[in-house]
């Protein structure tokens, strides 16, 4: 597969702060690359540099094999961007907003009309064409934001946290739309701090923090980086500290922590741990409402790599 994006040694500094620190990666044709990282990790800055919206201090950026500059109009026509912030005109209807932004790429009116209708269908806004943005809910606004960014059917799409603060229904709709774009062959760079979205959509993931790449690979490969094999979560209203210390001494336990509502136990190895803890709870007559076991998540990997949660 040929590279659609090639980023080499990208450095972007804001005065004393290095927002992007020697970033090197590429994105292959038809690939969905997830940029995963907490707020302020440099995801959006990296995208803005790639799009030539921002100057950068060092490095090189190529898109479709050509160097990307602010006046690379021939490259820009095949790029679509969905920004983190909703970027639409309050004074224009849903249809007009999509038509306006699509019209910056497509001059043929008939073709544009079809593209706008396709985009409206893709994000499920057929019943809201004549609505003004102020009349739309947060989720519908996000869908409009996406439609404005992809209506011209770009080959390369940047989606910068498109599902932030949306209701579950809109979120599912948005994710279905992105799958549709992916299935139609678009190359996608997807930034988020929702790991479940990344697991669902992305072929490959880059974990970023403080502008640096901490790890890269497929979901399974990244999960294998975790030192733990199993995580058991138990919902308990009260737990004596002595029990917690006892649990920590179990054979496979890596760590155990109680936050007042739930007890989370991580294990280095993953055999019969659930049975063991359930028997202990029964023996000590500890009341609990819910217990479940799971494999390590990307968040656990991130926690191990950075010492903090993805959503911090």
């Amino acid at each position, binding site marked *: 597969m040929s590279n659609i994006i090639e980023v080499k040694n990208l450095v972007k500094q*804001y005065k004393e702060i290095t927002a992007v620190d020697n970033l090197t990666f590429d994105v292959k044709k038809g690939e969905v690359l997830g940029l995963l990282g907490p707020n302020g990790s440099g995801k959006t800055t990296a995208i*803005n540099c790639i*799009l*030539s*919206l*921002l*100057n950068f201090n060092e490095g090189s950026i190529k898109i479709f094999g050509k160097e990307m500059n*602010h006046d690379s*109009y*021939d490259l*820009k*026509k095949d*790029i679509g*961007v969905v*920004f983190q*912030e*909703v*970027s*639409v*005109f309050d*004074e*224009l209807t849903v249809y*007009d907003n999509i038509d*306006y*932004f699509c*019209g*910056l*790429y497509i*001059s043929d009116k008939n073709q544009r009309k079809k593209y706008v209708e396709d985009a409206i269908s893709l994000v499920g806004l057929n019943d809201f064409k004549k609505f003004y943005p102020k009349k739309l809910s947060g989720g519908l606004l996000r869908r409009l934001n996406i439609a*404005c*960014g992809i209506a011209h059917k770009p080959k390369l799409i940047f989606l910068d946290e498109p599902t932030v603060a949306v209701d579950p229904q809109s979120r599912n709709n948005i994710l279905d739309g992105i799958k549709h774009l992916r299935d139609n062959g678009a190359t996608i760079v997807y930034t988020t701090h929702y790991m479940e979205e990344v697991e669902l959509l992305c072929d490959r993931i880059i974990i970023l923090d403080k502008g640096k790449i901490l790890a890269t690979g497929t979901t399974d490969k990244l999960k294998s980086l975790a030192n733990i094999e199993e995580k058991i979560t138990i919902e308990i209203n009260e737990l004596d500290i002595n029990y917690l210390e006892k649990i920590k001494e179990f054979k496979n336990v890596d760590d155990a922590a109680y936050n007042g509502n739930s007890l989370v136990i991580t294990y280095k190895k993953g055999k019969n741990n659930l049975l063991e803890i359930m028997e202990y709870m029964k023996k000590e007559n500890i009341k609990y409402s819910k217990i479940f076991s799971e494999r390590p998540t990307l968040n656990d990997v991130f926690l191990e790599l950075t010492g903090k949660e993805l959503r911090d």
Partner: protein
Amino acid sequence: MFWHNFKYSLKTLFKNKPLIFWTFAFPLIMATLFNMAFSNIENQEKMDIIDIAIINNSEWNDNEIYKNSFDVLSSDDNEERIFNIDYVNAQKASELLEAGSIAGYIELIDEEPVLTFNTNGLDQTIIKLVTEEIRQTESVIKNLSEEEIQKEITSGNYNIDYESIHNKVVELTKEDNVRLKDISNSNLSYTMIEFYTLIAMTCLYGGILSMTAINESLPNMSNKGKRISISPTKKRTIIFSSLFASFIVQLVGLSLLFIYTIFALKINYGNNIGFIILLSIMGSLAGLSLGTFIGSIFKANENTKTGILIATTMFGCFLSGMMGITMKYIVDKNIPIINKLNPASMITDGFYSLYYYGDNLDRYWFNIISLLIFSAILIIISYIFLRRQKYDSI
């Protein structure tokens, strides 16, 4: 792409309620208030005749143009007379001025009128304007007389008919008197001065329209700007189509102002309405250019840019005499370069020139061309600046 962006810029500007209020409704409200406030003052002021003195020397009595003009303007038969004149000697004039009995006095020295005042105010400004008007007319008449004599000589007629030339000069003097009557009954009206001020301010505040349109297309000013910046449409297409849309909206606003003042408020702009409209269009272009310029070169948020634009416009208006015509003369006299570069001054000077210099449109056209050059320079600088602009942060 130009017309596509133009169409949607027009739509967004027309549907921007606060912008439409300031562009369309605010001038109409101001016009209504001016009409209510100043028409009363004017009716009252018509009764207030300015007391002046003229040094009654032989030079004054020999100068028919000045003598006749001031006779007309102080004649009891003239319903719109503006002066009450005491013909006195220099000492008496000085005493009257010291006593506050007159607003000022005029003396002709070497064919030039010398004005003496104790203070600067509206009465003094009117005396200055009228005297300046007569001085200009006298100059025109002299030139015409010389031209007539030269024509006769050129055509080989050395037997010059001085009587015929004299009659022409007399006719011109009479025409001048008629024009001076016009000045006294309409051109020096407070209401008209305020309406010209309002038109000029409306022109310049059009800058907010272009600044809003430019801000929408800048990635550091709006999220929509980011989206526009990453599109393949060239910056110049976006800038010029947005500017053109702002211009159209501004012209619609101005048209409404003219329609409302002419048909609803019954304001009489006289025979120069075509020139007034042309000057307003050029003034609007200058205002839009100023908005584009400030929107382009300042890296600040929208509120700061709006503040800079309003402050610049207000200061320009103040220096141009919109808030008191005396200021224009103070600036013209002491630092003339400021008003030569000040678009507000170009607009007001254009308006005043139409009335105080009548048929001679040289000064009017000078102001029109000045506004065009001012607009072109600002637009070119804005374009160069935007084209080369790269962002360290957005």
